[in-house]
C-alpha cells in the first residue's frame, strides 16, 4: 500500500520567528546572524526581502551589508526558535505519531494511517499549513509524496507558503528537470562526479543504468538511483530524543614507549585535555573516568572509577586516571599505549549543587580555566597553549591528540 509522507519546512525559520515577534521588522530586509565579536559573524538566515538582494546563508555580515546596506542584523535567540519548533511539533502530533524532525525547522510526517481519521494527505497538509499560520504566525512549505526523498523535493519546490504534491502522475514533469544537487545526500563532491559522467539533472540520474552508477559511485550510486526514481523506502523514524553520546575517549600509541610514572602522567594530561575539550563541545560532564593501559607485550587492561561529582576538568580527569594507573600497574614492562575515557556523560547545564567545599570550588575554577584554554586554542590552534609539563618531553609533547584524533561517527543510515 502506498504511503503518504509529508515534509514540512518552515520558511526562513529564524527570520520568520523574529518577524512574528516584532511587527516592525516585517517589511524590512532582515538577517539573523552569528556573533559579530568573533569577526566570524555569518548569516544564518535571511528573510524574503533580503534574499533577492543577494543575501545568502553562510555569507559574512560585511558581505551581506555590501549587498544590502539597509539590512537589519539580529543575533539568534535559540531558546525562542526551540520554543517555536516544539509548538510546530505539537501541531504535527495532532495528526500522527510518526514524526521525524530534521533540525529545528523541518520534519517528515507519515500520515498513511491517519487518512481515515483526518482526511487524505493533501487535506492534512492544508490543515497543518493553516494552523502554522494561525497559531504560530509563520509560514511553511509542505511536500506531499509517497516517500521521504520526494516529499522533501516537494517542500523545496515552492517557497514560501506552498503545498506541492508529487505523485506518479506528475513525477517526471516536476522532478526530472531538477538539478541533481537538489537530491538529498548529493553534495558538491557527488555532484561533480555525476557531472563528469554526463549527469546534471535528477531525470538523467534516474534514467542512468545502475551498473554505471555503481561503478562511478559505489553503493551510494545505487541508493541515489533509487532516490531519483522516487523509490526510497526508508521509514519515517520517530525520534523521541536524539541519541546522545555516552562517552568520550582518546587513546594513543605513543611514539616511544613510556618507561616511568612521569611519562605516563604527561600522556594522561595530554589525553585528558583532549577528552575534556570534546566533552565541553558536547556540553557534557562525565561521571566515570576510565584508564586504558597496554604494555609492550600488548597485554592490556581498563580500570574505572566513579567521580564524586560530574566533571569536565582536565586536571581532575587526568589525576583520577593517574591514580587508577598507579594503583593497578606494576611496571613489569614499559607502556606501549595509553588511553583515557570520560563516560556516563551528563548534561553540563544541569543545576550543579553549589558547594562550600574546597574541592568543588577548585574544580569549578579548573573548569573555567579549561574553557578559556579552549577559546585560545580555537583561535590560534591546539598547540598554541600547553601545560609546562608537556614541554619537558620533546617527543611526547609534540602529539596533538585532538586534531589528529579520528572519532568514528555513527552511520547515516542508522537504525
Amino acid at each position, binding site marked *: 500500500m502506498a504511503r503518504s509522507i509529508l515534509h514540512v519546512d518552515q520558511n526562513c525559520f529564524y527570520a520568520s520567528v523574529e518577524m512574528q515577534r*516584532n*511587527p516592525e521588522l516585517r517589511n524590512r530586509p532582515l538577517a539573523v546572524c552569528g556573533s559579530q565579536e568573533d569577526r566570524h559573524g555569518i548569516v544564518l538566515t535571511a528573510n524574503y526581502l533580503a534574499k533577492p538582494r543577494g543575501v545568502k546563508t553562510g555569507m559574512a555580515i560585511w558581505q551581506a551589508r555590501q549587498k544590502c546596506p539597509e539590512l537589519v542584523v539580529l543575533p539568534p535567540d535559540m531558546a525562542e526558535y526551540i520554543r*517555536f519548533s516544539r*509548538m510546530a511539533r505539537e501541531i504535527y502530533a495532532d495528526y500522527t505519531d510518526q514524526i521525524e524532525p530534521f533540525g529545528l525547522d523541518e520534519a517528515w510526517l507519515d500520515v498513511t494511517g491517519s487518512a481515515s481519521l483526518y482526511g487524505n494527505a493533501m487535506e492534512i497538509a492544508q490543515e497543518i499549513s493553516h494552523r502554522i499560520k*494561525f*497559531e504560530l*504566525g*509563520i509560514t511553511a512549505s509542505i511536500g506531499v509524496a509517497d516517500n521521504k526523498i520526494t516529499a522533501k523535493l516537494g517542500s523545496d519546490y515552492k517557497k514560501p507558503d506552498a503545498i506541492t504534491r508529487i505523485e506518479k502522475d506528475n513525477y517526471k514533469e516536476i522532478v526530472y528537470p531538477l538539478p541533481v544537487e537538489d537530491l538529498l545526500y548529493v553534495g558538491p563532491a557527488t555532484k561533480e562526479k555525476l557531472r563528469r559522467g554526463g549527469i546534471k539533472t535528477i531525470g538523467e540520474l534516474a534514467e542512468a543504468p545502475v551498473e554505471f552508477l555503481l561503478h562511478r559511485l559505489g553503493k551510494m550510486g545505487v541508493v541515489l538511483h533509487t532516490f531519483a526514481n522516487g523509490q526510497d523506502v526508508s521509514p519515517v523514524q520517530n525520534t523521541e530524543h536524539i541519541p546522545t553520546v555516552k562517552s568520550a575517549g582518546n587513546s594513543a600509541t605513543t611514539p616511544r614507549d613510556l618507561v616511568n610514572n612521569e611519562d605516563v602522567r604527561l600522556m594522561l594530561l595530554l589525553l585528558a585535555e583532549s577528552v575534556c575539550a570534546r566533552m565541553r563541545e558536547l556540553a557534557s560532564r562525565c561521571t566515570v573516568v576510565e584508564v586504558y593501559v597496554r604494555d609492550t607485550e600488548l597485554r592490556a587492561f581498563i580500570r574505572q572509577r566513579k567521580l564524586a561529582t560530574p566533571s569536565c576538568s582536565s586536571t581532575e580527569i587526568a589525576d583520577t586516571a593517574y591514580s587508577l594507573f598507579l594503583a593497578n600497574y606494576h611496571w613489569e614492562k614499559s607502556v606501549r599505549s595509553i588511553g583515557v575515557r570520560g563516560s556516563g556523560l551528563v548534561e553540563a547545564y544541569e543545576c550543579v549543587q553549589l558547594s562550600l567545599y574546597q574541592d568543588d570550588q577548585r574544580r569549578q575554577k579548573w573548569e573555567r580555566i579549561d574553557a578559556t584554554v579552549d577559546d585560545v586554542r580555537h583561535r590560534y590552534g591546539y598547540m598554541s597553549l600547553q601545560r609546562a609539563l608537556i614541554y619537558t618531553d620533546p617527543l611526547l609533547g609534540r602529539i596533538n591528540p585532538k586534531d589528529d584524533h579520528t572519532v568514528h561517527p555513527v552511520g547515516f543510515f542508522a537504525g
Partner: protein
Amino acid sequence: MIVRFEAEGKLRPLMIEFDESHKYPVDRVLDVRRAACESVGGVGDRYTCRIQGQECYLWLEKGRWFVAAKE
C-alpha cells in the same frame, strides 16, 4: 492580572488590574486556543474575553499576560 489556577491545571483570567483605580473584571471567557498575535507580535494561549460588554483578546505567553484589541 488576577488569575484563578484550577486543580486540573486550567487557568482562568478573572480581572485585569492596571492599578488601584483601574480594574476590569472579566465578565466571561468565550474561547481559549493557541494563537499568534499579528498586531503586536507574540505567540501564546489566546483567551477571548468579554470585559464591560466589549470582546477583546488576552494573551498568555511564557508566563506573561498582554492585551490586544479584537480586530
